[in-house]
């Protein structure tokens, strides 16, 4: 099985690492907690990502735990990794339809980590509006091409309305908020994220998560 | 509908009517309606009191000699003496106690021949109050209209709505009808006790009032309920009434009614002209004012539409706006215009009459007291009618202003100076007050003045200038009073207007 590691997965792992040194299992659990409605992160993908982050100098091995069980490597984020993470969140997600997942990742990361979430929402809003404006100005060549544009506009509008909800969470203290945000997406027009019920999330995970964040 | 269903609907209507009583606008509406209906009842009772004065039947007295003396309906005496007794009987034998005591009353109330005129005057005074009450019943205070529309949306039939509307005014009407007697007693204190002897207008309350009271009360309730049912008709309130208000143009049936009344008026005038001294003429003279006022009130809306059309043709925006508003709902201002037309006509008569009296040389004190007193009283009654008409104008205009608050605010937003909006309302008010009053005054003064001129045979040089002068004075008096009334109405409208023009009104639906 070929594991394709998207850049976004690496960015999320980096975001999770920014909370403190962690080993592969911690990172998988952190990911699945943040995105409990999404597809769980495969172990193979975690380790492949960590290897690549280490290669690029964005993460480094902190130490190796040799407890009762098998040997476990604990990674930590490097200054270069932190810079890369900040740059990732600062840059609004591409507002096209394929960017929807990325939009959720960035929003959740910005809210969870407190990386200027208000600024993030504002920048993302502007990016979406710009795309919408460009689409609106596309001359309609034939009726169906206009329909395609309308579909894209409707999706952008849905994203924007979701972002408005997200902006509402900015002011409130919300560790649990992103979870509800994802529910919001699932209930809304976005069906491209088929919700799996394999989540092993529990309230304990949550409190644990918050204490480390 | 079965009896049970009807009863349930009626009780539901009563619940709705009761529960909306808490709304401040509704309370205000009911108070206004109650006041107007009470005044109607009081003046109806005044008509009853004056009409029945002296009809109590033969009053009999026993003389010291043992004879029984009774007054005939014809004015003579019937003396029944015991055998062997013969007494001289004359008018003064019993200190005047054999005839109704008219000593304190004004001559036109005391003299049986003139009394019907006073009765007609009292009935005429009911008209402005009735118009006012009608205005209040029709008052589509936004909340009330929304409520009726919401009920309609929930499936209330038009019969249900009429029932609810009837239930809403029934209680008020009943209270007003009952309060008519105390109100009449107050009126009597004011007009029958307080004035100096010889100026009193109302006789001491008699038994007839006790009979008249319930009749008048029922009459008031029935009239109010009928008016309310018509106001709640399907045509005026539909389910979407909350978002869309339609203009209510005059209907064919109202044209027919107007035409019939005008026909009766013309018929009466012709009768009077053909047989000015016949037996019927006396009745016609009495009924004619009533018919005339009815005709004026019925024709008022048509006059208002005509005036509105003329404004629209003038083309300047203030006139166009005022004209369109008049045409959009000519009914209520039209009735006021009708009352003011009658007021103007009465002023014309009165002024002509006064000038005629002074110039004809009938200046002995008795004549002056008789005619002068009558005319002063008539002018006071005319003034009262004018004030009530002006108040109706305020009620109707403030409703229209508040109804149109969003478009009014938008008008200011698009750059109309507030003064322009005020001018629109002023034009509207003047069109339905000054114009009809002046028109009525011209007609009244010309008619009576012309009659004098004809009667005098043109033999004296001053007759024609005097008639012309009467027209001018009547126009000045009626027009001035109407302008004053319009100005007062506008003053009372200042707050609702300012409210409608404020930017806050852009936010309200």
């Amino acid at each position, binding site marked *: 099985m070929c594991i394709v590691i998207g850049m976004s997965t690496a960015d999320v792992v980096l975001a999770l690492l920014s909370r403190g040194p962690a080993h592969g299992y911690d990172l998988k659990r952190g990911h699945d907690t943040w995105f409990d409605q999404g597809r769980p992160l495969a172990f193979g993908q975690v380790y492949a990502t960590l290897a690549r982050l280490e290669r690029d100098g964005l993460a480094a091995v902190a130490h190796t735990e040799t407890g009762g069980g098998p040997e476990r490597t604990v990674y930590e984020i490097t200054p270069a990794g932190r810079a890369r993470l900040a740059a990732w969140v600062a840059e609004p997600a591409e507002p096209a339809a394929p960017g929807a997942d990325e939009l959720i990742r960035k929003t959740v990361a910005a809210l969870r980590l407190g990386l200027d979430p208000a600024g993030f929402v504002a920048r993302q*809003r502007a990016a979406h509006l710009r795309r919408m404006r460009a689409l609106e100005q596309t001359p309609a060549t034939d009726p169906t091409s206009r329909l395609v544009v309308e579909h894209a506009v409707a999706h952008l509008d849905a994203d924007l309305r979701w972002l408005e909800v997200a902006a509402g969470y900015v002011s409130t203290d919300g560790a649990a908020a992103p979870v509800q945000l994802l529910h919001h997406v699932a209930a809304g027009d976005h069906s491209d994220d088929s919700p799996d019920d394999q989540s092993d999330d529990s309230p304990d995970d949550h409190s644990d998560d918050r204490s480390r964040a | 509908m079965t009896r049970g269903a009807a009863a349930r609907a009626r009780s539901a209507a009563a619940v709705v009517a009761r529960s909306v009583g808490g709304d401040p606008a509704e309370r205000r509406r009911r108070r206004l309606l109650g006041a107007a209906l009470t005044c109607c009842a009081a003046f109806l009772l005044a008509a009853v009191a004056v009409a029945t004065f002296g009809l109590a039947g033969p009053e009999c007295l026993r003389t010291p000699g043992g004879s029984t003396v009774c007054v005939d309906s014809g004015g003579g005496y019937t003396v029944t003496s015991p055998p062997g007794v013969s007494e001289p009987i004359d008018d003064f034998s019993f200190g005047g106690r054999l005839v109704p005591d008219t000593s304190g009353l004004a001559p036109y109330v005391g003299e049986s021949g003139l009394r019907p005129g006073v009765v007609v005057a009292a009935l005429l005074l009911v008209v402005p109050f009735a118009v006012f009450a009608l205005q209040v019943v029709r008052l589509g205070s936004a909340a009330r209209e929304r409520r009726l529309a919401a009920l309609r949306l929930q499936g209330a039939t038009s019969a249900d709505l009429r029932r609810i509307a009837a239930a809403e005014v029934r209680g008020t009407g009943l209270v007003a009808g009952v309060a008519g007697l105390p109100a009449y007693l107050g009126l009597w204190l004011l007009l029958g006790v307080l004035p100096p002897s010889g100026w009193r207008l109302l006789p001491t309350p008699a038994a007839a009032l006790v009979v008249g009271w319930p009749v008048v009360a029922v009459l008031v309730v029935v009239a109010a309920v009928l008016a309310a049912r018509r106001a709640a008709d399907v045509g005026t309130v539909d389910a979407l009434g909350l978002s869309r208000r339609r203009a209510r143009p005059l209907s064919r049936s109202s044209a027919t009614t107007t035409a019939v009344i005008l026909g009766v008026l013309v018929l009466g005038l012709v009768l009077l002209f053909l047989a000015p001294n016949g037996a019927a003429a006396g009745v016609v003279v009495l009924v004619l004012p009533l018919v005339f006022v009815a005709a004026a009130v019925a024709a008022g809306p048509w006059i208002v539409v005509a005036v509105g059309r003329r404004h629209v043709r003038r083309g300047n925006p203030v006139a166009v706006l005022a004209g369109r508003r008049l045409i959009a709902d000519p009914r209520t201002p039209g009735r006021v215009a009708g009352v003011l037309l009658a007021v103007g006509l009465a002023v014309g008569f009165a002024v002509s009459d006064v000038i005629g009296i002074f110039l004809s040389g009938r200046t002995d004190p008795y004549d002056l007291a008789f005619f002068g007193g009558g005319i002063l009283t008539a002018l006071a009654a005319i003034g009262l009618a004018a004030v009530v008409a002006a108040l109706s104008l305020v009620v109707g205009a403030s409703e229209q202003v508040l109804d149109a608050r969003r478009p009014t605010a938008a008008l200011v937003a698009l750059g109309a100076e507030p003064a322009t909006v005020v001018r629109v309302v002023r034009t509207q008010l003047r069109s339905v007050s000054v114009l009809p009053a002046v028109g009525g005054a011209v007609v009244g003064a010309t008619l009576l003045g012309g009659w004098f001129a004809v009667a005098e045979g043109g033999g004296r040089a001053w007759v024609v200038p005097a008639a012309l002068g009467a027209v001018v004075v009547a126009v000045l008096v009626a027009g001035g009073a109407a302008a004053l009334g319009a100005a007062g109405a506008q003053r009372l409208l200042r707050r609702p207007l300012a409210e409608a023009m404020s930017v806050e009104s852009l936010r309200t639906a």
Partner: protein
Amino acid sequence: MTPPSTPGDLPGTPPPDHLAATVPVPAGAVLEAHGVQHAYRRTVALRGVDLRVDAGEVVAVTGPSGCGKSTLLHAAAGLLVPQAGTVTLLGRDLARLTEDERALLRRREVGIVLQFGQLVPELTAVDNVALPLLLDGHPADGARRLALDWLERCGAEDVAATMPSDMSGGEAQRVAVARALVTGPSVVFADEPTGSLDTLAGRQVLGLLVAAVRERGASLVIVTHDNTVAARSDREVRLVDGTVASEAVLR
């Protein structure tokens, strides 16, 4: 409401008739608002807002309900004088103008479109559109001709003789757009102009408004909570709780 102008300011203000003549074709800012604050009886609507609109610019003012965007529009159009801050519209400090002068400025230089219910209910569409011209003393014939012309441009010539109560929401808004543009304003203020319309009708009315404003080179300030409306603007100013939360150039 009377503007808080001191009598000393008045001699400097030219008489109303010269108002149109003295307003130059604006270069740069058409509207400049600084530190605008306004509170209603119970709520604070604006807590110090700055807004600048350049000539020919389309600016969207967005934000959640109750953020103060309508109040900002009303202050910008001179419909209310804010309790603090200055508003300069077409080079004139609105607080220094009398109410009538502000009305005159709006009549000649400003167009206003509201969400609904702005047409005079007793007038036909063509009379409604001609009204601002008539108020300005234009002869009735010319005003009606120009009004018909604008109704046609706005695709509302079919309802020219119709009363507002007999129009659809979209038709009424088209008439409102025609009425806002008939005087050839330098700046148009629109408060939720599509708020009462369905998507398609709203799209058409908005397209009409923006195209007409751009064609004239006029400025447009459009208050909306609709993202697709905001996306038609050159710049979005987002209000939250009476302050500018963010600004984004979309051009």
